[in-house]
């Protein structure tokens, strides 16, 4: 049973990637998961400098989902390269760095630092964080912005470039196209949906940031639709995510057209989810007599059923 997939030049042993911001810098999970056994590890979004992020409350649970407004707290790319990357490399993790910028130049700067460093497998461009004004969302919500950041980073690195798309747009497929035109090696989606929750007793927002990003199973049907739309719009690989809790959910994304999938919120609910999903994928391939999971990518059959009546 072959679970390996390719994202451009990147060869992943499984299609299961830890989603950015849901897996710390990877090393936090060293004790519970063999980092090398994952398809990849997308680390928490990094700017050039350190960031404190938003004050609590930073998360709140919602029906089958959660809102977060962490505010991209992080150690900055330089400390990351010094303090985290060597250990990740030592463990054989395929590290995908989720990069952020307040300006186009900052994205390029961060990309260069990571390109010169040893042990980075790919760059995921976070142009879709809904939680901070200067979090790149101004790029992610405009086609030209998406194109410009992607091509600027493209020019600055030989590493695979993976713009991460926001679902808070009318036509996500056009953003996938803009990324492809700008030389992206793949696109990943979805980031979280801009949302809010209110404590009706205090009449205040539940999050200090007022707004937060919705993730988890609640958003899965929308995310699957968006992956399906992007699959039809571009030739480059699509990395799908949004509410994947088990192998069945991962297969929904793969059948819709995702070459690989990322798992975020589910890792909070169960840090041992990785082995369970992996085993579930193997069992599915087995049950259906399919040798390679890659053969299932986009295999959704949408031919109409026999009409119920004339």
């Amino acid at each position: 049973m072959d679970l390996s997939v390719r994202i451009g030049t990147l060869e992943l042993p499984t299609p299961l990637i830890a989603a950015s911001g849901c897996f710390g810098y990877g090393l936090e999970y060293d004790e519970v998961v063999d980092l090398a056994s994952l398809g990849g590890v997308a680390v928490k979004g990094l700017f050039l400098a350190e960031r404190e992020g938003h004050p609590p409350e930073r998360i709140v649970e919602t029906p089958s989902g959660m809102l977060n407004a962490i505010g991209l707290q992080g150690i900055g790319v330089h400390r990351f390269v010094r303090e985290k990357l060597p250990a990740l490399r030592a463990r054989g993790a395929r590290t995908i760095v989720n990069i952020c910028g307040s300006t186009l130049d900052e994205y390029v700067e961060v990309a260069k630092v990571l390109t010169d460093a040893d042990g980075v497998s790919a760059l995921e461009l976070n142009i879709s964080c809904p939680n901070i004004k200067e979090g790149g969302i101004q790029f992610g919500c405009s086609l030209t912005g998406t194109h410009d950041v992607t091509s600027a980073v493209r020019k600055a690195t030989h590493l695979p470039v993976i713009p991460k798309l926001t679902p808070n747009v009318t036509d996500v497929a056009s953003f996938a196209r803009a990324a492809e035109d700008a030389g992206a090696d793949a696109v990943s989606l979805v980031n979280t949906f801009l949302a809010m929750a209110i404590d009706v007793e205090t009449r205040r927002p539940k999050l200090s940031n007022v707004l937060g990003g919705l993730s988890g199973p609640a958003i899965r049907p929308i995310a699957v639709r968006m992956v399906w739309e992007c699959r039809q719009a571009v030739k480059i690989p699509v990395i799908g995510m949004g509410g994947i809790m088990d192998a069945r959910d991962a297969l929904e994304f793969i059948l819709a057209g995702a070459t690989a999938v990322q798992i975020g919120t589910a890792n909070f609910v169960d840090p041992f989810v990785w082995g369970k999903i992996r085993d579930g994928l193997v069992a599915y391939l087995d049950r259906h007599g399919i040798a390679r999971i890659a053969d299932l990518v986009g295999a959704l059959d949408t031919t109409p059923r026999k009409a119920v009546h004339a």
Partner: protein
Amino acid sequence: MIDAMPPIDVDARVIANVRLGHGYSVLALEAPAVGEQTAPGQFVMIKATPGTDPLLRRPFSVFEVLRDASGAVTAISILNKIAGRSTRLLYDLEPGDRVQCLGPLGRSFTVVGAPQQAWMVAGGVGLAPFATLAEALARAGTPATLFYGARTGGELFYLDYFERLGVTLALATEDGSRGARGRVTTPLEAALARLGGPGMAMVQACGPEPMLEAVARLAARHGQPSEVSVERTMGCGLGGCYSCVVPVKQGAEPPHFVRSCIAGPVFDGAGLVWD
């Protein structure tokens, strides 16, 4: 002190769920492997029901580590207080039901040794981490006092448990129905004033954050070290989500948000920044 063993996730059978009244229950879970590794003040992340609503686990201090006659660990218990949906679901569990229990997690309280005394300060459900700490202190032969406050006498639980371990009790209730009237900080402050000199007592607190702040300030003012266990909303308990941060002093620099699930929940009371 950090627990060296990796946390494990147990599909734990409910052995008992004793309702204590006032929305409190003691839920015993068949998770010996977790209990064997638990140090005082560590916590577990529990999912009360399968399915996605509620979605996330909830953090709970390990209350008791239960043993059979031979002394082998058979289970852990948590002291559960109804605060919302998951705690309500846990309150309603019956023997034979199952929950997912991940742990042990986080940094534990320091088990000090004589001649230094251990002063435990508990507010309400903040009693939870002190049952195991009291046991460890008893094993170490450390003189221990429990300052324990609640709204009313009926909400003071497990007093005999602590007495059996030779712990001195200093109680306080807001309605004065038991012990001193008012906050637990009242008897604590009086005792601190009577204490011989600096460093003689390690003050260890768990409860509402205003209480933790008051306790940390009092201890500092009287030259005693303190450790406080904070309660922040936790999404993962493993350092993955950055939801649980508390501001910690770092010398001259501005305070810094630290993840209480891995750097805590127990912190040096002098190191935290209060609102």
